[in-house]
């Protein structure tokens, strides 16, 4: 336990990055996922088709490949993140962090889209019919009637998607972000005799984050449950 307690600041810093990655890409993928689902259930055929293929393709690609694309191929298209240079306290948010956020967001938003779509499908038919009957347009039907209910119905699948995101932030370590797994690897290298304790400590960190999030999601779901 010595290795972890004596380097507790590094331990916290690692999970700090993990949480930042989670919160930022989580929020962005909720936004992007909502846009995607609007495309996928909307009236414009081209968008339905494009949204469908986008989701299918990105969902079938391993996250590592998505990361690698933005790290090594996107610069060829002039997509660079060198301009990202923010420092808050001990945390540096630079191109590496930005690339991690972009990759995680694009990947996760596809799953958010699917979760929301299952939510849209769970809204009773009568709701949409009633909305149309009182003269709401597609935009109005979606934003005032369907999506609010769909969000409620999709809290459990959305929470699962976001929990997967918490765990997926660990992939950022392969691409130069000093998040929890990166810190764990440094720590196990410097204190190889305490490998198991270090591993359990980091696993416990993730489990704590996942459980807290899951607890909140459960509360939300009970609070919002559609009768």
């Amino acid at each position: 336990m010595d290795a972890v307690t004596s380097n507790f600041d590094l331990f916290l810093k690692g999970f700090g990055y993990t949480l930042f990655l989670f919160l930022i890409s989580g929020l962005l993928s909720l936004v992007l996922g909502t846009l995607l689902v609007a495309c996928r259930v909307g009236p414009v055929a081209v968008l339905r088709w494009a949204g469908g293929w986008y989701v299918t393709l990105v969902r079938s690609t391993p996250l590592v490949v998505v990361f690698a694309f933005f790290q090594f191929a996107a610069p060829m298209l002039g997509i660079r993140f060198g301009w990202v240079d923010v420092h808050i306290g001990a945390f540096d948010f630079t191109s590496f962090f930005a690339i991690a956020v972009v990759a995680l967001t694009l990947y996760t938003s596809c799953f958010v889209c699917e979760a929301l779509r299952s939510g849209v499908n769970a809204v009773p038919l009568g709701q949409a019919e009633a909305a149309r009957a009182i003269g709401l347009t597609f935009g109005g039907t979606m934003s005032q009637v369907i999506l609010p209910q769909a969000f409620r119905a999709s809290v459990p699948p959305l929470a699962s998607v976001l929990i997967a995101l918490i765990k997926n932030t660990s992939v950022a370590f392969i691409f130069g972000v000093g998040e929890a797994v990166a810190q764990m690897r440094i720590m196990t290298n410097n204190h190889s005799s305490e490998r198991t304790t270090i591993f359990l400590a980091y696993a416990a960190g993730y489990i704590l984050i996942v459980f807290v999030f899951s607890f909140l999601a459960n509360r939300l779901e009970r609070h919002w449950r559609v009768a």
Partner: protein
Amino acid sequence: MSASVLFDSPGPRTVARHRAYSVVAAVLIVVAVAWAVKGFYDHGQFAYDKWEAFTTPSYVQALLVDGLLQTLLMAVLAIAGALVMGTVLGLGKLSDHRWVRWPAAAIVEFFRATPVLLLMIFIWYALGIKEDSSGFLAVVFALTLYNGSVLAEVLRAGINAVPKGQSEAAYAIGMRKSQVMSIVLVPQAVKIMFPAMIAQCIVALKDTALGAAVLAPGLMRVGKAIYTELHNQVPTMAVVALLYIVVNLLLLWLATWAQKKYVGEKKLQVAMVGTMDTGRGV
């Protein structure tokens, strides 16, 4: 609910508007794709020598044999292991005995809440003893533990999804619990679970790519070796991604087919991680 009930069947003006939207959207998509193609072209990414490796037999063989085959092998072994582990833990979670139920639940929650990459790295270090292909084994074990836990939850959800009358009827005609499980519930649950199981195969297959971090073989590793030698990152990445996508699309298609054939519209309610849900279905 199908998409069509979200909007009225459009009148002439709306049809015109939608057509306008379609044109704008199509143009935007085409422009974006063209811009990407031009970007790659300007950087010489379409030059033959960048792609030559993928028409050279030795590289194609490396990609398919050392890459794809190893990736598939790892995924298949992991899924096989996960099925065994998932069955044991899933039935454990459904046990009448608290001392079986709780440990099973704890194991499931632990592995579902821990990142696979972390498991892989740990197992890799732990295995490192005089063993060939410890990277390969680390990937297989880590994916077995993770997917096994997920499948345990899927199994439980599947058994819970079998109508209650089935088990009640089975008990009523005097079956024991083990008989109710093996004769009545599990066979029906497997049918319901099938799509979710295939979906989990896709997850496992994609996660094998993480093995690159622990020197495991597979597509990602071969891809890296190729672009390190030939400096053709973009073509290599495209080919590697394409291979993953093709295999995954086949699996996805299988899952959709199975959903239609065996399950219909019914959705499986798999509990979220961290809920410590030990409710019994029987």
